[in-house]
């Protein structure tokens, strides 16, 4: 019975995902509707970050971060390099503990969970690392099957079916026997996405999913992230520098800088923001509230002073 329930729960989600990727009309309309159907569901957050403080060495990374990640939507965290966006994902996943404040996922304070409870929570979270983080000694098939083999005692035939469905959903069924070293960057991330989805998580975190991707791979990843979120009813949390791409599939955006939240809202709200900082960040202007020049002594004075330093 346990196996049957597991099979049904998973297979329906992936049939939807496959149909969506195959481009059936029903799935397409679902996808298009979701793109325009922006609703604020912060009333029902999956992730709550409250008064988060964290330092690395003597450098403060977060200085009282507060935001929610709405359930069932694609949320993107934006911010300049070195703001601690990846650190934030690690804190949500329980790999780092806050200095002060709380990070709760589905009502559970992540930092206070026992190792057993944390692992139970992680089974419901997927994470796509920037490098893919595939195990290099396993083939693509074995990488995707890995969480199932570790955490379940499903029969081999069922594992094979589940893995092939996920690989088909990301377009890599034909690469099942390849090893990570034989994959391109985009293929590695798609394989990692298949692995992250294999345990039917309630949420998935993406760490810079588009970095270094060619336009086709980027398009594939964009479609996958959006459609998988929609078809499987996930909550997606993404960290990205690729503004145009990230905003095109996001329902909700959180901009952080210098350890605090600068602004939150839908992509349209942010594009029309009155904040000069947000406008500079979204337009990529080299100068503005964030100056081009770091603070330094007067230029002319320094050149004429004759000092070597």
């Amino acid at each position: 019975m346990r196996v049957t329930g597991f099979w049904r729960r998973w297979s329906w989600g992936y049939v939807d995902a496959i149909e969506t990727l195959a481009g059936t009309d029903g799935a397409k309309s679902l996808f298009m509707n979701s793109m325009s159907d922006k609703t604020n569901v912060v009333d029902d957050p999956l992730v709550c970050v409250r008064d988060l403080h964290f330092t690395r060495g003597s450098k403060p990374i977060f200085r009282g971060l507060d935001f929610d990640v709405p359930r069932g939507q694609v949320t993107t965290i934006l911010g300049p390099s070195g703001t601690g966006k990846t650190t934030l994902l690690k804190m949500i996943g329980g790999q780092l503990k806050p200095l002060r404040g709380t990070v709760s996922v589905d009502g559970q304070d992540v930092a206070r969970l026992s190792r057993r409870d944390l692992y139970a929570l992680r089974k419901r979270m997927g994470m796509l690392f920037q490098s893919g983080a595939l195990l290099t000694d396993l083939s693509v098939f074995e990488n995707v099957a890995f969480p199932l083999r570790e955490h379940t005692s499903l029969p081999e035939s069922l594992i094979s079916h589940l893995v092939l469905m996920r690989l088909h959903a990301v377009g890599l069924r034909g690469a099942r026997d390849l090893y990570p070293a034989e994959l391109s960057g985009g293929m590695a991330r798609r394989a990692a996405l298949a692995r992250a989805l294999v345990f039917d998580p309630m949420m998935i975190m993406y760490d810079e999913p588009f970095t270094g991707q060619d336009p086709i791979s980027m398009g594939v990843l964009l479609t996958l992230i959006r459609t998988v979120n929609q078809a499987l009813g996930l909550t997606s949390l993404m960290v990205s520098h690729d503004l145009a791409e990230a905003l095109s599939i996001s329902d909700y955006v959180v901009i952080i800088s210098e350890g605090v939240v600068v602004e939150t809202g839908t992509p349209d709200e942010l594009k029309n923001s009155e904040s000069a900082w947000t406008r500079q960040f979204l337009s990529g202007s080299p100068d503005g509230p964030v100056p081009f020049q770091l603070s330094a002594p007067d230029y002319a004075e320094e050149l004429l002073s004759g000092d070597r330093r």
Partner: protein
Amino acid sequence: MDFVARFGRFWLDVLERLGRAHLFLARTLGAIGSLIPRFGLLVRQLHAVGVMTLSIVLVSGLFVGMVLALQGYYLLEGFGAEAALGQAVALTLVRELGPVVTGLLFAGRAGSAMTAEIGLMKATEQLSGLEMMAVDPFKRVYAPRFFAGFLALPMLAAMFSAVGVVGGYLVGVEVLGVDAGAYWSNMQSSVAFLDDVVQGLIKACVFGFVVSWIAIFEGTDCIPTSEGVSAATTRTVVYSSLAVLGLDFVLTAIMF
């Protein structure tokens, strides 16, 4: 004042790192039970650190035995005691050179490989990936490698000594003309199983434990960059070699 502060900071860092290493060891030892359902992982690591180190150990053992026979023959010949060559070669190998040289070779070949592999797994986020899949790296990565190293080194040391004895025979008996009967019978009468062979293997077990611990800890504790992995690999070889030589003295003083 600056010097005093830096001196204090240095030792605080050393103590902190030692503390981390011991906590790491405790968690690795605590994961031993997980090897029962993952026996295949242990076998795979035994192949990686044991079988793959075998060729260098066997070749080294053969040459070390041959050199021992040459040096021993020139020394013993002066006293007219060349018949004791087998005894000299065997005791030197079983008590000292077998465990020590195998420990050094193991640190250079398998220890450095373990550090580099784990360091690269850290740099490529594979360890974080395992954590996020709710898979404990102590059970999946560290414990199999640690116990494989611990088990493989005594076996390799035994084979090193056995091949060394054969090397001594080839040079002493076949080349230098020592009587074959004297070579084997003196060896048999003077090498005690418990006092020599077993105590030599105990040394090898201790070296296997320490080298594996250092190698795996350095891998997990490295800075996840190419320079960091390179530095950690170097530290593994240096610390392991020093630990083998230092512990050899301590164990010899205690046991023999």
